[in-house]
């Protein structure tokens, strides 16, 4: 087991880490939390539930409505650019334009299905806190008819009077970070060429378009 020396060393480490941990829990962030961001998420969520509860809607119309809500709620071009990260700089204008188009299509393909197949989930806002310099993190809990509730946080940025979501964090996993790392991996597998990613996106999106 642990020797005495190791134990003392770890005890010291523990003391330090325990102390460091406490400085994180400060109420300062709550003071700057933006209630407008929370109201924005509440409204967007209500709209989404109202839209997809209506099961009489034909499928293609439901997907069209999803796209409308997506643009009302999310800054899709921002997310696309953020996800591409450093490779944005090495892409030319034509590549950027095609990438953004494919990225949007990928988002619609990925998420439209889940919303269209809405089956009675509800959500409640559990908190809002300042994030970074300009954003708010709105934390929600999605309650599902079967299965445990899911914690989802929405990173909301205000520009002018408008709020837009720029990242979604599901059970501590950021969708933006996941996609950024995935795309970086695809680009690296293709010798660092953005074209490799665009090709893969074309295949992914094309195979499910229609």
């Amino acid at each position, binding site marked *: 087991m642990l020797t005495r020396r190791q134990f003392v060393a770890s005890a010291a480490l*523990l003391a330090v880490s325990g102390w460091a941990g406490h400085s994180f829990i400060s109420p300062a962030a709550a003071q700057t939390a933006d209630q407008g961001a929370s109201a924005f998420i509440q409204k967007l969520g209500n709209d989404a539930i109202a839209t997809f509860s209506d099961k009489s809607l034909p499928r293609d119309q439901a997907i069209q409505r999803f796209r409308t809500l997506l643009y009302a709620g999310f800054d899709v071009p921002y997310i696309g650019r*953020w996800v591409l990260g450093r490779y944005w700089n090495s892409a030319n204008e034509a590549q950027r334009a095609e990438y953004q188009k494919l990225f949007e299509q990928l988002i619609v393909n990925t998420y439209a299905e889940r919303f269209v197949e809405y089956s009675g989930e509800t959500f409640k806002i559990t908190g809002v806190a300042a994030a970074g310099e300009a954003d708010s*993190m709105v934390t929600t809990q999605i309650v599902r008819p079967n299965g445990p509730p899911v914690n989802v946080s929405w990173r909301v940025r205000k520009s002018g009077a408008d709020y837009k979501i720029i*990242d979604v964090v599901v059970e*501590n996993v950021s969708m933006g970070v996941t996609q950024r790392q*995935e795309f970086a991996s*695809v680009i690296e597998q293709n010798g660092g060429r953005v074209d490799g990613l665009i090709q893969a*996106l074309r295949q992914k999106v094309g195979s499910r378009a229609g």
Partner: protein
Amino acid sequence: MKLASLSRSLLRTATVLAFALTATACATNPGDSGAKDGAYQVNDPLEGANRVVFAVNDAVDTVALRPAAEVYVAVVPDPIRDAIHNFIDNLMAPLYIANNLLQGNFDGATDATGRFLTNTILGAGGIADVASQAAIPHASEDFGQTLAVWGVGDGPYLVLPLLGPSNLRDTVGYGVDTVGDPVRIWAYAHNGQGLMYTRAGVSAVDRRSEVLQSVDDLRRNSLDFYATVRSLYQQQRQAAIANSKGPSAQEFPDFTTAPKP
């Protein structure tokens, strides 16, 4: 007994490895991870081998684990599955308590102890999760997290056969947890190896059954499923280690004011 000496040598190797890791962690300064390319930092020097193991695991999942989980969900009613899940989790409680203490997290240890006592006594030996209804928070603390709290860095990303995504630190942690697992110690002392295999099997099916749809979605929507899983693993571990208190370290720059190239 052969096994006891095996455990001892395993533990010794683990300790040595752990301290070797600490040394590397200090040398590379984990605080740098928030640097400009932080979001791309994937420490995966064995990617080639990892991808092979990942593909094998994926095949095993497709032909065995996923179908088993589907049958499990279809055949076993919800309340019984919950009971099985709770029972397996409650058996891990002594490890959660120990790891909380080793991390110096006394609130966590108190919660874990409270959960264990509540569920064992009021929850009929752990099949009912009374503690959650009483709002005692649940956090599974393992030795990999303890090492992280002690300052040990992740080490290279590893995909373990059958066990799935890990890294060097968490693999060591898993070894230590396995050795320290009271159920294993009891089972080996009473010739109950069969019980261990049963628990491992049921536990795998139980965990798989909880993520059936999410994994299907991920697989379908990924361009590179391997990279997606690697990213998920790293993010979830970071959150588990920090007990999800710390805010995301990612930077979201304002592109509108950035100089146009």
